[in-house]
């Protein structure tokens, strides 16, 4: 892994132009920072631009205002875009490829020789406890298993920055709990910088080192909270008084913003 890289976001804005309707201001004057090797959660009402922010970080969208930079911690210099990989809410596995072919896909595209990419893919599959399922197709797996393939497919690329866009949004509550614990261990051991978009306050507190609360559209940062609860965190953590305090603080902010978002969505904004 190369030198630690932080992501700095300054005055970031993005407006989607539309021919038929009024332009959508997805992000407006967003300022925040993602620390290297840490997990930062992004939480905010639906449509506030969380996915848009990830797409800008990934380089798939260009901001209309402000900037997003990668900064080398040691020298303070602007760095190249680091290696990145995304885990998607809809899994986005290739249905015609087996588990191992899905996991090895990125390595294959990069021209990694067969023996090496197979070995690396098998290691990643083992890390998410899916050994024995290498030759199954995604449709033969449960939702939780599919997302573990999604996580393995991202981690096998050894990303310096891992983007997680509501990775457990499509899973049931129990599967979610198990995967949250598994993910937090994997992220910790890999030392990758992670940005986790979530709608779950609990998930944000259990997984993140820092939580950024965003406002209703147009998305801005309304709060940044450092989570100092000791690791490893688990379900038991939710009984700690500090957890309750954090939860209340975030919930209070989100409640107002979600109400606001609902007004926007029903045509009031």
């Amino acid at each position: 892994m190369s030198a630690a890289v932080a992501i700095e976001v300054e005055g970031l804005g993005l407006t989607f132009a539309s021919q038929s309707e009024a332009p959508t201001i997805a992000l407006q004057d967003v300022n925040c920072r993602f620390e290297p090797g840490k997990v930062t959660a992004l939480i905010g009402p639906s449509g506030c631009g969380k996915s848009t922010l990830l797409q800008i970080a990934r380089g798939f969208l260009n901001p209309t205002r402000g900037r997003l930079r990668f900064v080398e911690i040691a020298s303070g210099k602007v760095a190249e875009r680091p290696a990145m990989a995304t885990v998607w809410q809809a899994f986005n596995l290739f249905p015609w490829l087996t588990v191992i072919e899905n996991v090895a896909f990125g390595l294959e595209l990069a021209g990694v020789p067969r023996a090496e990419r197979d070995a690396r893919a098998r290691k990643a599959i083992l890390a998410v406890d899916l050994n024995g399922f290498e030759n199954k197709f995604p449709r033969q797996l449960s939702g939780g298993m599919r997302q573990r393939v999604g996580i393995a497919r991202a981690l096998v690329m050894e990303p310096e920055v891992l983007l997680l866009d509501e990775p457990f949004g499509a899973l049931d509550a129990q599967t979610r709990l198990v995967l949250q614990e598994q993910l937090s261990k994997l992220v910790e051991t890999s030392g990758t910088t992670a940005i986790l978009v979530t709608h779950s306050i609990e998930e944000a507190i259990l997984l993140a080192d820092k939580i950024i609360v965003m406002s209703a559209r147009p998305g801005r940062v309304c709060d940044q909270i450092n989570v100092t609860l000791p690791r490893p965190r688990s379900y038991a953590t939710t009984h700690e008084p500090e957890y309750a305090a954090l939860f209340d603080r975030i919930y209070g902010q989100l409640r107002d913003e979600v109400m606001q978002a609902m007004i926007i969505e029903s045509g009031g904004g």
Partner: protein
Amino acid sequence: MPNDLPLAEQTPIVETPVAPASASSWLDNERVLGWGSVALVILVWEITTRATGVSPLYLPRPTQIVVALFGMFATGELHKDLLVTLWRIFVGFGIAIFVGTALGIWIATSVRVRAIADMFIAMLYPLPKVTLIPLLIIWLGTGGPFMLTISFLGAIFPIVINTVLGVRQCDPGLVLAARDLGATPQQIVRRVLLPSAIPSIFAGIRLGLGVSIILVVAAEMVVGKLGLGARLYLSGQILETEQVFAVLIVLATLGIVVTKVQDFIDVKLGRWRLA
């Protein structure tokens, strides 16, 4: 992870009715019923033509048709016609598969190309392709290039249209995932758009082959001295009705074989079918 068990291998939703184990159960067997009724029709045909003494010029007996069929194969003439027709169909059709798929992908991935192609497809696709035969004869004569073109034209439209459809129906999430994993635009086409369009492309190929067969046989009837279509037409002209039936049997068999091969390929491609 107890709540995280693998789904069982694709259990079929449709339940096939279980035949009752009674004496008449063979009547519930679809195969027996199907083949049995065909045999019955042939039997009735044979008996009534014998009994009524209808002229074989109008309706030959099944046994006469079988004799004619074997006779034609014995002299080798039917082999030759069959091979000529197959060759004409599959050369043009084969080219149409490659050109059609490539063109379809190009149309589906480029807004400009689509704008242009949409117009031509809208104008040419509804035109019954047989109506092009006279024009093509004027341009190309009646030889190989004509047959190749007519077979190509029959197959290309369904293949292009289905390829475009298949590519455009590709889940945008898969394209994003591939980009995220570092795919170049070319890799996205080859490794994501093409495989996800495979079922649709095969549906197009299936339709296209059907049209190619029809067109080549029809063209042979118009111009040919060789080929099944020509044999069919010439036999009719000289009132060799058994031979007409014999050629029809060959054509029907060809259709059945083609369908079965395609069914087989479809099953083999089952893994492409989405969850």
